């Protein structure tokens, strides 16, 4: 792997007595899109603003292409930022907005014009260069903000919840556009969002943050399939938690005892807890089936509590293994189920995650 374009080392930020970011270290290689994901107040935006230079870190170091920029003012850093509110200059036209940074970089006038045109074409706003920002729709403004940030060809593109002001359908479309665009330009990108779906779709790597600390770093699939902590499992997607005790180790599987006498097998993780300790089992709703067990599946008896029809799927709440489990069912079986009915749940041991703690 080549040297990283953006590198944060032991970054820390305190606001008074509150620690907003605590010992954060991330390296982002060229062309990678890293997403900082977490609930509001987890420090993700503070981290982004430290990279942009709007907030000075209490401790730690930030480097862009090897250069230490930790104490440099924002205008001496090689970043391009898309703000949550877009922050387009209201008194300048779309073209002038895009040209703003090029002027400051002392790009010759002729080159500026061509670059502005290129950018307008790229975000498909070719004809709107003469408009003022307030004459554009939200999605168009968002594209101008992106074009303005990319026009200066920054080493690192910073995106601060860029889709949060758009309606749901537009958000999905802009998300796909952004993915195509960034993939084409091969721009190193740091992206902040609280929307887990956005992170799963866009990111090459997700950094899940909670209360200023990094919970887990990894590709979207790994974050979703192999969450390391209860927080990550809970924050991304839906997840059932079953308190259990480690009973025995059987080959490459771990047997755990849960409530109501249920015994569940789970694929052994790298750091399996010792026998006799308490653990938390995590199972995604889509990994529990009602009936129809495979030969290797865990079979857990339960009782249906509620059935909720959601169109493409049904959500069934089942009392089993001492917990209230949510089951997502895509078949037609759910429609026949009545609250109170006794069912047998089938869970693949490979889909049962053992998390530390009770």
């Amino acid at each position: 792997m080549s040297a990283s374009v953006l590198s944060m080392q032991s970054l820390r930020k305190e606001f008074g007595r509150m620690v907003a970011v605590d010992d954060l270290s991330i390296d982002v290689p060229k062309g990678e899109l890293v997403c900082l994901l977490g609930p509001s107040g987890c420090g993700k935006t503070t981290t982004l603003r430290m990279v942009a230079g709007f907030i000075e870190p209490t401790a730690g170091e930030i480097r862009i292409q090897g250069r230490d920029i930790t104490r440099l003012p924002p205008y001496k850093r090689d970043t391009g930022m898309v703000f949550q509110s877009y922050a387009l200059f209201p008194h300048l036209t779309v073209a002038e907005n895009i040209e703003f940074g090029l002027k400051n970089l002392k790009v010759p006038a002729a080159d500026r014009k061509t670059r502005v045109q290129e950018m307008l074409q790229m975000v498909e706003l070719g004809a709107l260069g003469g408009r003022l920002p307030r004459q554009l729709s939200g999605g168009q403004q968002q594209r101008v903000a992106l074009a303005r940030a990319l026009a200066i060809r920054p080493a690192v593109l910073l995106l601060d919840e860029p889709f949060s002001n758009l309606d749901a359908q537009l958000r999905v479309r802009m998300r796909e556009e952004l993915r195509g665009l960034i993939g084409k330009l091969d721009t190193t990108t740091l992206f902040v969002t609280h929307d887990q779906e956005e992170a799963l779709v866009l990111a090459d790597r997700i950094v899940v943050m909670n209360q200023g600390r990094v919970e887990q770093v990894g590709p979207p699939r790994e974050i979703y399939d192999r969450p390391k902590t209860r927080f990550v499992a809970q924050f991304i997607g839906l997840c059932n938690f079953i308190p259990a005790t480690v009973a025995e180790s059987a080959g490459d599987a771990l047997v755990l005892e849960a409530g109501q006498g249920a015994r569940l097998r789970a694929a052994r993780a790298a750091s399996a807890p010792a026998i006799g300790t308490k653990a938390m089992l995590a199972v995604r709703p889509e990994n529990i089936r009602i009936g129809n067990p495979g030969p290797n599946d865990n079979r857990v008896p339960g009782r249906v509590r509620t059935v909720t029809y959601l169109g493409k799927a049904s959500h069934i709440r089942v009392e089993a293994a001492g917990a209230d489990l949510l089951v997502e069912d895509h078949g037609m079986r759910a429609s026949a189920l009545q609250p109170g009915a006794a069912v047998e749940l089938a869970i693949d041991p490979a889909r049962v995650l053992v998390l530390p703690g009770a």
Partner: protein
Amino acid sequence: MLVPLLTLVRTSLYDSDKSFGGAGWSLRHYVRFLGDGFYLSVLGQTLLYGLIVSVFCVVVGFPLGYSLARMSARGRRWRIPMVILPLTLSLVVNVFGWLIILGRGGLVNKFLLGLGLIDAPVQLLFSSFTVMLVMAQTFLPFMVLSIMSVVAQIDPALEQAAANLRAGRWTTLRRVVLPLAMPGILAGSTLVFILTVSAFITPRLIGGTRVQMLGSMIYEQTLVTLNWPFGGAMSLILLAIVFVFVAGVNRLSRTRFSETRS
């Protein structure tokens, strides 16, 4: 509002120099004013003072108004009253305060004497510079408040965006903050300009007879010489000029800076 104004117009058209009971109508008071180099130079000087005081207030008021607008609510809580306080004082009290400070035995002279910078008290009063300084001090709050209210509407993220786009502080000020704050600067300037050119207490008390401004001259014509028709004519000429000025500024802010208003 209209009745006094119309009375003024009527009075200014009297033929005689008497304020009452004159007979006949004429424009001779206007002709007298506009045909006389002395009066015109006083008019010119008044307008010049108005401009200088306005510009001075912009230069001093912008940093103040800007920093107030960007301050936290807590920081503003006791600073805003400090800006407004001078406005609650009667103008006469304010001017007398300055007389005490700037007089021969005043604070400034005592201080300079004490430092040994001067040997004898200096004449600080009765100069046009002092008159303008006092007027600027008196009218500054209007400028500060009008700039502050406009800057408070400017999203701080715009300045961050400018910085992110490699604009240094000066470029950000010139290309983002100033254009967006312009409606407030123009509004404040209009207020200060009008207040300055129509001032009569400050020029009379601080400037004495050496500093001639139209306001104090009108005051003399009406209350000392009792030549109301001539005073009325001067007032209306001043009013017309101010009117043209305000209309011009309004037009400027509408056409050039209209986009910042939404």
